[in-house]
């Protein structure tokens, strides 16, 4: 370091004599730097979801009381999940859509396990609002699915984004039918 402060250009001699010390300095500083960086990781990781939070990640839903055409909201991992017992017309409408016209192209079949049960996370993919459409009196938008009041995104009867700022379709959570009328989400 002292070499650098000297006004004359570094010649071969000073360069040679500096090498050992420079090496030690660089090695020690780098090691301390890496050590400090590693020490930060536990702090950062402590902010990630804790084990008990992760443990609460499944929800069982009894579908028996849900009538055709009725929509049910359940809570899964702190967010609403929309369960839609779709009518034949709604399924037909979802199937008839031209994939080329979609922002996030997915067929209806890719988004459901049983066509009459659509299960999607009720969180708008734009900025996380809960779209309207679960209650019969709610606006459902121009495509019969859901309408997000925050920034006007509209979803169709398959929960696919059709209009507005949201980039993606409503997410389909992992789920399985444990019996004919019970579904386990998560």
């Amino acid at each position, binding site marked *: 370091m002292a070499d650098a402060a000297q006004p004359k250009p570094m010649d071969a001699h000073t360069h040679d004599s500096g090498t050992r010390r420079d090496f030690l300095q660089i090695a020690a500083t780098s090691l301390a730097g890496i050590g400090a960086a590693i020490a930060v990781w536990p702090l*950062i990781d402590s*902010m*990630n*979801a*804790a084990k008990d*939070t992760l443990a609460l*990640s499944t929800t069982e839903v009894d579908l028996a009381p849900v009538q055709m055409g009725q929509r049910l*909201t359940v*809570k899964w*991992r*702190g*967010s*609403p999940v929309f369960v839609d017992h779709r009518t034949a017309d709604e399924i037909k409408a979802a199937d008839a859509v031209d994939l080329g016209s979609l922002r996030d192209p997915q067929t209806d079949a890719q988004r459901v396990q049983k066509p009459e049960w659509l299960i999607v996370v009720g969180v708008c993919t*734009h*900025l*996380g*609002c*809960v*779209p309207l459409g679960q209650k019969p009196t709610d606006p459902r938008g121009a495509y019969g699915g859901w309408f*997000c*009041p*925050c*920034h*006007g995104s509209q979803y169709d009867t398959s929960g696919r984004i059709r209009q507005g*700022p*949201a*980039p993606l379709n409503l997410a389909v959570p992992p789920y399985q039918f444990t019996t004919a009328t019970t579904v386990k989400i998560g």
Partner: protein
Amino acid sequence: MAAAPQQNKIVRWIDHRLPIFTFMQHELNEYPTPRNLSYWWNFGSLSGIMLVIMIVTGVFLAMQYTPNVNMAFDSVERIMRDVNFGWLLRYLHMNGASFFFIVVYVHLFRGLYYGSYKEPRELLWMLGVVILLLMMATAFMGYVLPWGQMSFWGAKVITSLFSAIPVVGDSIVRWLWGGFSVDNPTLNRFFSLHYLLPFVIVGVVVLHLVALHQHGSNNPLGIDRKGPQDSIPFHPYYTVKDMFGLGVFLIIYAAFVFYMPNALGDPQNYVQANPMQTPLEIVPEWYFLPFYAILRSVPDILFIPAKLAGVLCLFGAIGVLFFLPWLDTSRVRSARFRPVYKWVFWLLVIDVAVLGYCGAHRPEGWFILAGRLSTLYYFVHFIILFPVIGWLERPLPLPTSIAAAVTRKGGAPLGAASPMEKH
């Protein structure tokens, strides 16, 4: 304020070991300040006083507040109803945030008009922008603490902004939340950081003041002090002027705290947070409205989707301020001598007002167009107009000195009021 160090034996003993009296003498009594500062220069010290009020009321509120999703809302209501003077502490703190932003925004526009960001005050200005960013983060997290509907959904929307980042966005959002949604871990960390950041702000304010005292205050003429005839000591001249301004300011602040404490807030925030239901309209506090409008207005830009573009422009709107000292190509500081910039400055003020108006309304109908145009103008103003006006504009002749411009006799003694000019 500070006694001369040699006057008192005890003072002398302390000062020899801890030169605090010398420091005060130097930075207050002797600190030369331009003699022509207007009331626009009050807003720096007002900001400092607001910071102190916020920290003091905040520390006492924290003694009563419970950062838990099941208890936070009720603990705030308890502060309002049961805690002695709790209503006063909370209303001071809640309205204090608004008034803190008012004085800081005036302070910032003062700097823009009089070119206070120009050489040699670039770092002083940039430290100010850092303080603004820290203030915004602090205010945002503080607003979440009462756990009302607007707290929750504001937190959800703003943290979801980070999901716009490609690839790692979702992981970052989960990390910010500490879970799968805004929930108890989120509230806890926001409380922790809301308590921490004000003290970080204090640290940056100290640097801001060190940078300020290096070259001293700019002034309405924007020309350098050339000698003792151009300056007066900070104390008592500006301490008394700051105190008078503070009195006027506190009257307005108190009028809000005592007579219309909820005028600036959103009634939705007196409804407890419900993660299953979004309020019909999510609107941030007024001081974030212009930025919220920018976020919502930006459409798809080339290959960048609207969501990411909105986020980039939101951060860019503050980020561009860091580059201002180099974007402005004019050497003349004060707009008083810049015949074109003098008017263009007001276009920015109007533009920010229009943005704020758009931010308060749903992006429908003509609000979409108004929001997009005012967002566009915001960036054009800084990135295009600033350098171009600097090149093309012909400034008016500058006065030879501050004293020459502001006194009839051009710096002749003013009388007993100016001790520095007796010699």
